[in-house]
């Protein structure tokens, strides 16, 4: 296991399920993220907050997963929001033209106040 490998850990803050993600999200592991998100939705989670603060970088494979999961959430009357987009990661969302495609909050605290 190396230090850039994808890490995922979920926790709860009231009704919000927080999935903290670290490392890289790329074509090789994006399916693991989708499995995890689908698992949370299948388990009945209605509000999932993805905290990307520890993410080193992500590729368009990650965007694809986030778009698919957002659609899947809508079908389940649930929602997915993002927070913790730091410098490099935010720039990648900008480059992909995807900042407007998601509900994005600043810090985790901001997000929890608004969700």
């Amino acid at each position, binding site marked *: 296991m*190396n230090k850039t490998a994808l890490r995922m850990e979920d926790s709860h803050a009231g009704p919000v399920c927080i999935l903290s993600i670290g490392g890289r999200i790329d*074509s090789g592991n994006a399916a693991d993220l989708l499995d995890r998100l689908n698992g949370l939705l299948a388990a009945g989670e209605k509000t999932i907050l993805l905290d990307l603060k520890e993410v*080193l970088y992500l590729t368009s494979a990650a965007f694809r997963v986030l778009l698919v999961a957002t659609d899947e959430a809508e079908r389940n009357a649930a929602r997915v929001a993002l927070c913790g987009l730091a410098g490099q990661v935010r720039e*990648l969302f900008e480059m992909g*033209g995807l900042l407007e495609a998601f509900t994005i909050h600043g810090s985790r605290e901001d997000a929890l106040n608004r969700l």
Partner: protein
Amino acid sequence: MSLPQTTHIVIRNDIADLAAVTSAMERVGAEYDMPKTPLFQLQVALDEMVSNVIKYAWPEGGAHDIEIRITARDEGVEVEIIDDGRMFDPRDAPKRDKPLPGERPQPGGVGVQMTRHLVDRIDYARIGSRNHTTLTKLCALGPTAASGEQT
């Protein structure tokens, strides 16, 4: 160590093999003290280009090799991707349309668009029956380059 130095790997057209490309790039980055930001940018671009080859180069399927040559130079790092799939010049890929208001963007084409932003140069040549796609990321290498950077 005097530059240029080339690391050469061959993978199969299987998305699971991308991990080997990522690790090879990580090793080169560490060995030549490539600063984190350009290293991560090149990792993203490389993932986009190689995953495109894996997904689209051989519509008829079958097992194929993809050759990757990572060269550390004084002025930066160059990655050449060689495949014998159908001709594809990433420089010709159409620009993405902006999604209509209220419409979610479609994922297609995002990778090439990001790659254009992430590297300093994309070169392409069709040599014989092979695509040679070269990504160049300019950056200073060496201990001073890596240590002077914010993480």
